[in-house]
């Protein structure tokens, strides 16, 4: 269905009521008053505390676990090990490679072995220390090069390669033979910690003998339900998951939600009493999932005209101890390998490799940050080799309506990257930019484009659901499984409902996601929360609107086409005199037996790909972004500051400009952190930087100046009002824009992130101009 036109025709308004305008977030009031409830805020005093007993070794066989010393402590209530798991001891996301509690061997420093349930925090910590686990340490592999050597210790029995991906398109030999310039290099990107302000938390309450409720921080309540039920060996309907307001997630809590909630649930079910598991900051940084590190070898060539003739890309993804989301992450990198450019000859290979380190996982940008860092560095270097302006070279290759992606997906509409790039170049006066030198400080400018497929990866079917009830008093209850993580997607849904039904925003209550009553909206990830979830909201709202209009037309004595719904009232178009307020209209629906409840369901157009060639239709649609940045590098110290950012994004349709800006600012900040500040240090598999002091993320002192955001609107036909997701592209485009600007400033290209002062200083000494 073409939801962009359907809605415009249906509403037939000169101007939208709330869509496209910045409105005050309905959740902001409770948050600013300190009344908003996050998981830990629900936990009553004297609730049992769960602590995880973790492996201190990167790789070790478990010879025995003695829980008796812990049980002898007065505050300890129970100690749970693998044998206590009623269901299957397996919680891997995509591959069955991740035991829930280990009893055979451990694969990273922090791998869980047992759970201690105790009366209070102190007793739980003491209990965890008292559990005696006898380990027999094994040789470990701590990087992908070692892991791929013949005879390397095996992290998992099947070998250290978890999976591979590939794309074969055109003829790269022919492509490279047509190239005037060919560049090739290796690009390394590190772990990044999410550093959400709220550490992982879950609170589980058992009910009777066959039900448990878990309140927790998460991104996908239905995934959490599935995993908790799997561990307990229960049916899905015996597990109730409630998503508490979640204090930042950025992908991290999509993976951690199930792991943490299942531990609290097992403790609660086994003890028969409520139990809570709340990570401290150190646990969160040392043992939770991180952005997957990657090493990308990238070769590309361009002809005299600056057209990219071929790319040959080889991606090695470091999984850490478990594959987790690696199949989806690696496939995203593979599918997006050319960047937002049309390239006819492509050969791409990817492999995900196990090591004995903390496992990687979901993080904003999902593979595309590392991929675009390589691809966009290469594009700049090709421009350099050909003596061409980097913006010009990009424009000669850029995706347009009618272009095909690396996977041969035809992009017939909603392709706004050319406009993003052109406008951002204009706004930043790219063609007349000037490097400045002030003492030891030099400025430079960089540009980068980005694209990110919206929808689930690997062509898995994607759909979403929502429900809407018109209550007797005219207020509305809206339910979606899309989670509020700070990004505001559910508020975007409410705006879509408000626009379609004419209900005032304040009359729409968004219920918290609760698997006992909320329709399954699928996960809040892949920038799909607004696009997929919001279109299900639109579907529910359209169905309810039809009934409201039908009854209102009868009451007003006019054709349905003449009924206008707005400001909580129904009236006849052009005759605002006679109005029916929504409480009255709602009463009439109930009185006439017209259903006041509606269920919205939306399925994305079908996608597919050929596993042999990788070609097919991979993502529903793509969001595009372009950024220009100005940096200042101190050539004495290596310290780099991002001075100014010019952001542009094709969002399809802006549902709320203020929310979009907020997403861009936050993504850029995380991108600045990833590129020049954040450095997760490990030694022998031990995370050495488990806090804000050592793992330095941007503070208020590290904010660049922002030019006004350039919003390009190329509507997507199959989503409500044409909106596309906006959460991820800004972090993807900012990272290479910064490194390209650093090169512009000092002539040094760091292919290994982070480009901290230390690294830049060393690189400049080793061959700066």
């Amino acid at each position, binding site marked *: 269905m073409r939801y962009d036109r359907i809605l415009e025709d249906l509403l037939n308004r000169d101007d939208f009521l709330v869509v496209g305008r*910045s409105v005050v*977030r309905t959740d902001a009031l409770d948050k*600013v008053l300190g009344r908003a409830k996050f998981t830990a805020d629900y936990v009553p005093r004297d609730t049992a505390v769960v602590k995880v007993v973790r492996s201190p070794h990167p790789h070790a066989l478990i010879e025995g676990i003695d829980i008796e010393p812990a049980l002898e402590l007065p505050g300890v209530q129970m100690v749970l090990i693998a044998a206590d798991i009623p269901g299957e001891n397996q919680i891997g996301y995509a591959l069955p490679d991740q035991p829930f509690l280990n009893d055979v061997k451990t694969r990273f420093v922090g791998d869980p072995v047992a759970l201690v349930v105790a009366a209070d925090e102190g007793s739980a910590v003491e209990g965890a220390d008292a559990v005696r686990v006898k380990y027999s340490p094994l040789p470990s592999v701590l990087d992908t090069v070692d892991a791929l050597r013949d005879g390397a210790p095996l992290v998992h029995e099947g070998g250290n390669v978890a999976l591979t991906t590939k794309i074969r398109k055109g003829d790269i030999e022919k492509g490279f033979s047509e190239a005037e310039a060919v560049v090739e290099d290796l690009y390394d990107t590190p772990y990044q910690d999410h*550093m959400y302000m709220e550490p992982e938390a879950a609170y589980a309450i058992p009910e009777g003998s066959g039900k448990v409720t878990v309140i927790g921080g998460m991104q996908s309540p239905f995934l959490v339900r599935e995993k908790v039920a799997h561990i307990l060996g229960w049916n899905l309907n015996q597990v109730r998951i409630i998503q508490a307001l979640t204090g*930042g997630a950025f992908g991290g809590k999509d993976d951690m939600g199930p792991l943490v909630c299942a531990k609290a649930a097992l403790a609660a079910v086994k003890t028969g009493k409520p139990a809570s598991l709340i990570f401290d900051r150190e646990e969160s940084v040392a043992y939770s999932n991180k952005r997957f590190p990657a090493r990308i070898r990238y070769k590309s060539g361009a002809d005299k005209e600056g057209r990219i003739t071929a790319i040959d890309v080889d991606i090695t993804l470091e999984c850490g101890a478990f594959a987790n989301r690696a199949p989806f992450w690696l496939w995203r990198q593979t599918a997006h390998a050319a960047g937002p450019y049309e390239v006819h000859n492509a050969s791409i290979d990817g492999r995900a490799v196990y090591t004995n380190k903390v496992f990687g996982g979901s993080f904003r940008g999902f593979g595309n940050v590392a991929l675009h860092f390589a691809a966009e560095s290469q594009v700049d270097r090709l421009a350099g080799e050909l003596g061409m302006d980097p913006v010009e070279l990009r424009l000669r290759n850029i995706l347009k309506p009618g272009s095909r992606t690396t996977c041969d997906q035809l992009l017939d509409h909603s392709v706004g990257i050319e406009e993003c790039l052109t406008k951002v170049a204009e706004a930043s006066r790219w063609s007349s930019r000037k490097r400045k030198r002030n003492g030891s400080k030099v400025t430079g400018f960089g540009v980068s484009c980005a694209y990110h497929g919206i929808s689930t990866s690997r062509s898995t079917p994607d759909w979403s659901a929502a429900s809407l009830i018109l209550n007797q008093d005219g207020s509305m209850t809206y339910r979606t499984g899309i989670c509020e*993580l700070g990004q505001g997607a559910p508020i975007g849904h409410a705006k879509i409902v408000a626009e379609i039904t004419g209900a005032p925003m304040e009359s729409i209550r968004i219920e918290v996601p609760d698997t006992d009553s909320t329709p399954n909206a699928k996960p809040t990830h892949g920038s799909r929360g607004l696009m997929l979830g919001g279109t299900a909201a639109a579907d529910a709202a359209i169905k309810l609107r039809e009934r409201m209009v039908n009854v209102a037309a009868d009451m007003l004595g006019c054709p349905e086409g003449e009924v206008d719904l707005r400001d909580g009232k129904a009236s006849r178009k052009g005759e605002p005199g006679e109005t029916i307020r929504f409480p009255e209209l709602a009463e009439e629906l109930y009185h006439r037996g017209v259903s006041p409840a509606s269920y919205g369901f939306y399925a994305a157009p079908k996608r597919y790909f050929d596993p042999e060639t990788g070609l097919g239709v991979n993502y529903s649609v793509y969001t595009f972004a372009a950024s220009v940045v100005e940096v200042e590098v101190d050539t004495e110290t290596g310290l780099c500051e991002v001075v100014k950012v010019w952001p542009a994004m094709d969002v399809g349709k802006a549902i709320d400009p203020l929310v979009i800006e907020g997403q861009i600012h936050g993504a850029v900040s995380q991108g600045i952190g990833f590129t020049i500040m954040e450095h997760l240090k490990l030694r022998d598999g031990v995370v050495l930087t488990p806090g804000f002091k050592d793992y330095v993320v941007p*503070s208020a002192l590290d*904010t660049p100046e922002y030019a006004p955001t350039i919003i390009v609107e190329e509507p997507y036909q199959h989503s409500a009002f044409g909106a596309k997701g906006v959460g991820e592209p800004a972090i993807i485009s900012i990272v290479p824009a910064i490194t390209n600007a650093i090169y512009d400033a000092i002539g040094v290209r760091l292919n290994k992130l982070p480009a901290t002062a230390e690294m830049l200083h060393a690189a400049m000494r080793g061959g700066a101009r």
Partner: protein
Amino acid sequence: MMEIEITINGRKRRFDVEPNKLLLNLVRDDLHLTGTKYGCGIGECGACTVHLDGEAVLSCMVLAVDADGRTVDTIEGVADVNNLDPVQEAYIEEGAIQCGFCTPGFVMTTKALLAENPDPSEAEIREYLKGNYCRCTGYVNIVRAVQSAARKLGS
């Protein structure tokens, strides 16, 4: 156990506390004032900021017994729903709130800043806020909110 007396959000309260009890835990566990957040527990993130005798402090770094005889104000004491503080209004209006977990700490720090310095420069705002981390907003709209609050309070 030690007996202490603290004026919390305008009300005098007596407590028996262990000498090692943190003010953060007293506020959250004993008083159920859960607007004050645990973010790191070691004074690095600012999420637990409260006012002690009007000054912004990290409640995870203050022993409850050290607040004996003093005044503690938390986010819950700043305003009620119908009568927001200009700082709170500004945070809402400027889009300075996303996930909201850091928000109470930021509001408390901002109030302390504006009490000390009613007309801070942007550089002074950034310097004062540097101990409060936010991972969602990139601080842009937070700084705008502080500037807007200063204008509201000044007019």
